[in-house]
Structures are given as C-alpha cells and as structure tokens.
C-alpha cells in the first residue's frame, strides 16, 4: 500500500471518529444531569464503511502503529525488529510479505518480548480478522 493511500486511510479513520463525536447521544448517557458537549466511543472495532482491508488499516492505526509504523521515529517495535532481523526481513510489519494469519493471531493474543497481548475488549476477533486481511499479503 502506498504512503499516499495509507495517509488517506488514516484521514478517513480520523474523519469517522470526528463524525462520531457529534453524533446523537445514546440513551444511556441522556440521563446524565449535566450538559454533555461532546462524546466519543472509539470502539474496539473502528467503524469504517470500507473493505475488510480498509477496516484492518484502521485497526492497525488504532492499535499497532504507535509501535509498528514505518518509523524510524515513534516506532519502538519497528526499531526492535530492525535490530532483530538486521535486513533479513523488513522491520515494518506493513512491508512484510511473509506474515500468515496464524502469526498475526499469535502475536496479538500471546504478545512477544515487551509487547503485551491484547484483550478482546481492546482488539476483538472481528478486528483481528480485519487486521489479518490488512497485513497478510499472500
């Protein structure tokens, strides 16, 4: 995926969140006896109207990019993988051609080194499916 495309997806994701901020209040919040000027519910599964892969990109941005963006800045996971593979494999997950669904699931649910596993309230099974569609190229 090109940098431009990724940037566009990121913008769309933020736009979806921005729309959520001004949406009508849910019933559960309306009983609050104080004014609620703004609210958001950044769901475990970021809602996009796009394809599974696009939704996977949103999941990646939400849960993975703080460590695994292409870097080198702001990407401690990418830096760590760079030291691990030393050029034998791409350090950025989005550039990997060899990831399998099993491997993605393993790291999300079991973690590795300092990366902790993610609970289903954070990254649910549907998110994992979308993330897999985004990261698994073959």
């Amino acid at each position, binding site marked *: 995926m090109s940098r431009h495309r990724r940037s566009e997806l990121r913008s769309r994701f*933020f736009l979806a*969140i*921005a729309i959520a*901020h001004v949406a009508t209040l849910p019933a*559960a*919040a309306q009983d*609050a*006896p*104080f*004014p*609620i*000027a*703004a*609210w*958001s*519910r*950044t769901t*475990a599964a970021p809602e996009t109207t796009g394809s599974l892969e696009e939704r996977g990109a949103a999941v990646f941005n939400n849960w993975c990019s*703080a*460590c695994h963006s292409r870097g080198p*800045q*702001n990407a*401690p*996971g990418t*830096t*760590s993988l760079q*030291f*691990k593979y*030393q050029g034998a494999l791409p350090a950025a997950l989005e550039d990997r051609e060899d990831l399998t669904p099993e491997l993605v699931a393993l790291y999300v*649910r079991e*973690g*590795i*080194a*300092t*990366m*902790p*596993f*993610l*609970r*289903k*309230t*954070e990254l649910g099974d549907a998110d994992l499916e979308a993330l897999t569609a985004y990261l698994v190229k073959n």
Partner: protein
Amino acid sequence: MPNPPPGLSERDFTTALGRIEEVVGREWLFTSDEDVALYRDAYSPLWGEDQERFASAAVAPISVEEIQAIVRIANEYRLPLYPISTGRNLTYGGSAPVYSGSVVLDLKRMNRILEVNERDKTCLVEPGVSYFDMYRHLRTNGIRLWIDTADPGWGGLVGNSLDRGGGYTGMDFRDHFDAHCGMEVVLPTGELVRTGMGANPQSKTWQLFKYGMGPWVDGIFSQSNFGIVTKMGFWLMEEPEAALQVSVSVPRRRDVVRLVDVLHSLMCEHTIPSQTTVGSPVMNGSADPELVRLRTSGGAADADWDRYAQAQGRPFWNASFVYYGARKVIAAQWEHTKDRLAGIAGVQFRETASYTFPLSDEQVEAVPDKARLGIPSLNLFGSRNAPGATPSEGHLDFSPMIPPRGEELIALADVTGKIYGDLGLTPSFVGGLMFHARTMICFHAVPTYRNAADNRRTRQLFETLVRSCADNGWTIYRIHAHFQPLGMQMYGFNDGALHRLHETLKDAIDPNGIVSAGRYDIWPRHLRRDRA
C-alpha cells in the same frame, strides 16, 4: 467453565456468571481459558509460577447500570470482582487481579469522552478512555487544550490517576490524581455516588471545584478497593504560545547539591513549570569495569568519581526541563534560571528544542520527547536497543521518593548500587524526577522475565531495594501488586495503624468484600485469616 474463586461453590459460581451474562450479553462475558489468559499480568514477576495471580473469568459492562447490576449479583454470592480501566498498568500489575480467582471487571468498553469544556479547560471521561483516545479527540476537533500523559500512551486518564501516576507538563496537571476534579463511583453495595460539587445534580462546577461540602472523600478511591470509579473530571492545560526545552549540566559529583537546591527553588517560585529530570551521564554511562566498581562500592569518594568523569569527558549531572508560555516570558524565565545557576563553576546551558504552537501533524511526529508536550506515545517500550541484543520481556518500576536534595540522590545511588553489586548485578539508572512539588522520585526499571529462575532473582533484588530504601527514609509511593503487602509494611508507624484504618474503612464500605480484595494489601474481613 472456569474454576470458581476460593470459597465459592461451583454451583453458585455458575449461577452468578449466568446472571451476569444476562446483564452484559454472551459476547462480553469471558470464561474460556484462552480469553481469561488475556487478563494475565504480561510483566508478572511470577510468570508461570504457582503464585502467579489469575482471574477466574472477566466481564466487560458498557454502562453504569450494568456495573451496578453486576455488583449486586456479586454481593449475593460474595463473588470477588477486580475492576480495571484500560488494564495497561503494566509494571504495577496490569490487568491481573491481586486475589486469584477474582472476576475481572473490564471497563475498557466504557470509553466515552463525556465532555470537553474549552472555556473552563476541563473534561469528564469514562475509565476506558486512553491517553491516545483523548489526544486524538482534542486534535481532531481542533481543541487547543493539552492532556498530561503518562509515558505509555496506552494507559488511561482514570486508571493512571487512581494509581497516582504522573507525567511531565505543568505543575497543575502532571500529578494525575491532583489534576482530577470530581468523580462518580459505584460503591461496593451498588449505590452510585458523585463527589465534590457533583453531589448537587444542578451543579455547574463539578469539574471546577474539588471539595464540595463535608469531608473530601476522593482520596479513598485511589490506590484502594473502596469503589468502582465510573466517571472522572480532569483539568486540562491551555496550549501555550511556545515551549522551550533546555538542559543544564554541571561537571562534578557534588555539584548536584547546589543544582537541585536551585532547581527546586525555581520550581517553587514557578519559574520552571515542568517536571525536571536530574540524571547522570557519568553514572548512567556504558558499564565498564571501573564504573561498575565505583557504582557498587557503596560510597566511592567524590574525588574518585570526578577523576572518572573527567576521563570520560562527560559532565557528572544533567538536568532537563521545559518552559511553556509566551515567548517573551520564556526568554525571561530562561535568563533568570541561568542567573541563579551561574555560581556553579563549569555549568553549561543548552537549548535542546523550541516549539511554536499549534504543531502540524509532521511536527508532532518529529517531536523526540513527546510526553513533555502532552503527546502520548509508546516510545519507551522497545524490546531491543542494539543489533543482536537479548530482547527485554518486561519490568517493574521501582520508585522511591526522596527529598529534593542532591546529597540524598547521591546517597540513594550509593545504597542501591551496592545492593546490585552484592547480588552480582550491574546497577541500573540513577536519576531524580521532580514530578511533585516537594519531592524527587528516583525511578528505575527492574527487569522481569518469562522464566522462574530470573524472576526469583528479580524478586529478591526488588524486595531488598524496597526494605533498604525505606530504612533510609526513601519510601516508595506506588508498587506492583505482588509487592503491595511489602510496600504497606514500610508504612508501619504505630504497629501498622494506617493499614488498620484502611481495613476499618473496607469493612464499612464493602461489608461483603467483593471489590479488588487485597489491592494495596487491603483485605476484606473474611480473607484476612488466609492472608496471615
């Protein structure tokens, strides 16, 4: 079906979970081994050992009403619950319960930003809101207010505040519990309480004035198990016109006494607004044999240290901090700072980064020291820092608090360095971080592992550090769940009177002992015998 908590019959456990499932729906009750394993403490110093704490199940409500319903069911069966907010309090216990067999009450789904009031510079949030969520919300909506973030941005405002964590920006904001204003709490009986001005349903000042009327009770909900906080207000920092990050270095070991005295004075007079870190480029340098010898000696002479520093070509101490505000004011503050420190022979001043706000997305990406501008990141959480390095697997934060005095920082480095040396280990980071107005916290990371042998050594080291530092008057302010009984022992004045008071409150507020049994060593009456 998972194993029931101790003391609960399988039939009651099954019935209670069935009723909880009716409240939250099947999707949000987790009972399979693989789902419940996601609530382990990823950095546990007991990983894989018999003593490791495990949940029996987890439940993720979406509303206050669902929490109340769950709490009422738990009271009927004496089902132990362990609330977490984002569950990312790693290094202090993560999402694992203190009392094995508890059902984790996972509040991550309650992630609404209920209000951001730009005019009042306040917000009201639910427990599942992370620093990333809040930052994204402010930035996406063009709101020129800052959060103060903990180092790892995956944590949340509510949980970090309740564990009394800290950040890096202005004094009113970086002590995260002090920066809160108003709470909503589900008590262990299921009753809903709002603190401070929130107790008046028509109040317009819930997030503006902390105390309300009568005893101010907010403190009892921090580092405790007296209720489930469902909303919390916070004060937010107005985005300044500019920021200037600077560093001050001094050449000799004993210079730190004067350096810290002046920095503390500048903070007290509000010239320096930010958290100030005092570290040692010499003591934190690459561990050559001479450095290890000096560090582990238990008190090498200043002259020996200064000779070593000179040979290394490094200043002994370096302080880093940030000014926020109008450019003209910052220039005057920086000049005043330099005037006050000019009397230290060899002092050097350096401007390390300058910012004018607002920042573009590209500028935000390029900020190296993000937390000092309230920008969340995970930049401190890399596993490897060199090619071929053994990856780190986790750590505990060891966090003794000392007076803001350089001689105390030197003494602590001597005491802790010797402890490491006696155990055959290389001493860790030395530095003092002035998060709070009148103290320094001397954090360092103690590594944890996924194997029992290394973790046994870590536990021995950690316990020795806690006891030795407390003997010297450097008590820790926050501690990993496994070590909370040890931590509370260090607060033992009058045969543990403070701890007895905590448990007296527990009995009154949570008579069935269902919320977070054992957190900060506060146990409900029916479990105290087991603990002894």
